[in-house]
């Protein structure tokens, strides 16, 4: 039963991974990528690693993919198709991919995997303790480093969004706009005056 589910998940993941790189429509590639990520979450669930599976779903499927879809929505039209790369580029990337694949396969087959007898469910409390422990096997340092990295990324995003140079420019633009507005209102007023006189 478990084997069957594993093979179904694996086939889905590989098929959608291939489809993701070969599809010529950008949003379809993103959806195939989403299937790969959900399949990975399924594998984590199968390993009884529920917390990591849920993280995979929230961060990758719910966060990263939604952001990618957002950017595709902003820049792509439905009729646009990606270009097919030139032949020599295709061959170079195929070669590089094969090299990477052989490296990964060699590592996996060289590694002596030990079969763990009883699988125990990793609870959220254990994950939390491991993340914050300062003892041996604790992850406090990488945890803190990543949080500093995320903070700097957030600050960077805010700085970019604010646009440093444009702040100085904007008052000038405003003044021009105000001048135009004043001129228009003056014109309107001068036009209005005779009308009122007629009314009187």
């Amino acid at each position, binding site marked *: 039963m478990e084997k069957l589910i594993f093979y179904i998940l694996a086939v889905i993941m590989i098929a959608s991974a291939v489809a993701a790189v070969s599809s010529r429509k950008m949003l379809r590639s993103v959806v195939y990528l989403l299937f790969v990520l959900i399949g990975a979450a399924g594998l984590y669930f199968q390993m009884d690693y529920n*917390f990591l599976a849920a993280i995979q779903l929230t961060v990758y*499927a*719910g966060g990263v993919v*939604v952001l990618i879809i*957002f950017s*595709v929505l902003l820049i792509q039209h439905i009729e646009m198709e990606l270009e097919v790369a030139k032949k020599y580029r295709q061959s170079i990337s195929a070669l590089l991919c094969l090299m990477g694949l052989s490296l990964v396969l060699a590592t996996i087959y060289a590694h002596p995997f030990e079969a763990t007898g009883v699988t125990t469910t990793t609870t959220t409390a254990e994950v939390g303790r491991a993340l914050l422990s300062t003892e041996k096997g604790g992850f406090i340092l990488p945890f803190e480093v990543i949080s500093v990295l995320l903070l700097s990324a957030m600050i960077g995003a805010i700085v970019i969004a604010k646009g440093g140079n444009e702040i100085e420019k904007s008052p000038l633009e405003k003044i021009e706009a105000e001048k135009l507005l004043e001129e228009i209102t003056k014109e309107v007023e001068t036009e209005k005056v005779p009308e009122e006189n007629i009314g009187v």
Partner: protein
Amino acid sequence: MNSISNMIDWFVSTGVLNMAMIALIYLTVFAVLGLFLVLLERKVAAWFQLRIGPNRVGYLGLFQTIADALKLVSKELTGTVKADKFLYNLAPYFVIVTSLMALAVFPFTRDLQAFDINIGVFFLVAISSIGVIGILLGGWSSNNKFALIGAMRSGVQTISYELSVGISLLTMVILTGSLQLSEIIEVQKSGWLIVQGHIPAIIAFMIYMIAGTAETNRAPFDMVEAESELGAGYHTEYSGMKFAYFFLAEFINMFIIAALATTVFFGGWLSPFGITDSLPWMGLFWFLAKTFVLVFLMMWFRWTFPRLRVDQLLTLEWKYLLPINLVNLVLMAVIVWLNLTIQI
């Protein structure tokens, strides 16, 4: 013959048959429940607007939405010619499958729970974050500007308000010390969490209801399908059964938000003051009663408040709800640390 009986044996022994039967029962029950939620919405709307509401089909119009569903099933499936057919057909399933998956983890009574996963609350948050992908895909692949604008608004809204839902639930998790929904209910045998956590719990509940209403794209946060601006928003181009999936998912999501609030804040299937502890099946009644009170609250919102603008929506989330929520989280941590909770 032998191979077939072998297969049946395999199905029974591995529990696949059980799973399939439970899934079928859940599907049927919640499809019907969704239909009656639609009816309830229309009745509540009529009540708020001093009308009678649907009252022709069946006794007091009880079969109105079932008739509507039959009509939707028998309708022709239309679509736009230049749509991206694959994504267009895929999108409704994202929405409906995620909302049905979320239902599996709720403990309706002590023994009626399909999937008691040890990260219950977090699983719900994770699953609900995928549903928005269906809306985004549906909006984009329809090749319609109104659908696209609706989808973009939905994305902005859901990503923002997910934070508030998550943090307000996290505030309550500090109190329970567990993410598992059945354990969260065990903890509440000494008082519902909204009583145990008093002030921060009430603030968390209010934020949760506001953010939950926004996450289900309901009024006053229904910019996604603002009728007066966008036609029908992201599902403008959908018809028949595919439209029905979106529609049903919206109502099931409302039920999920209310049921989660019931579980986390109001003791789930526990009866008030333990008055029906000797009758275990009464748990189902209490769970549904509490949930429907909250569903009514969400309908009350919908027919009372006017729709917000997009900038007001984002201001509300990022400048008010999120800071309040973060302070509230710290406050709850301090209260749990100093043992200031109210235990009955």
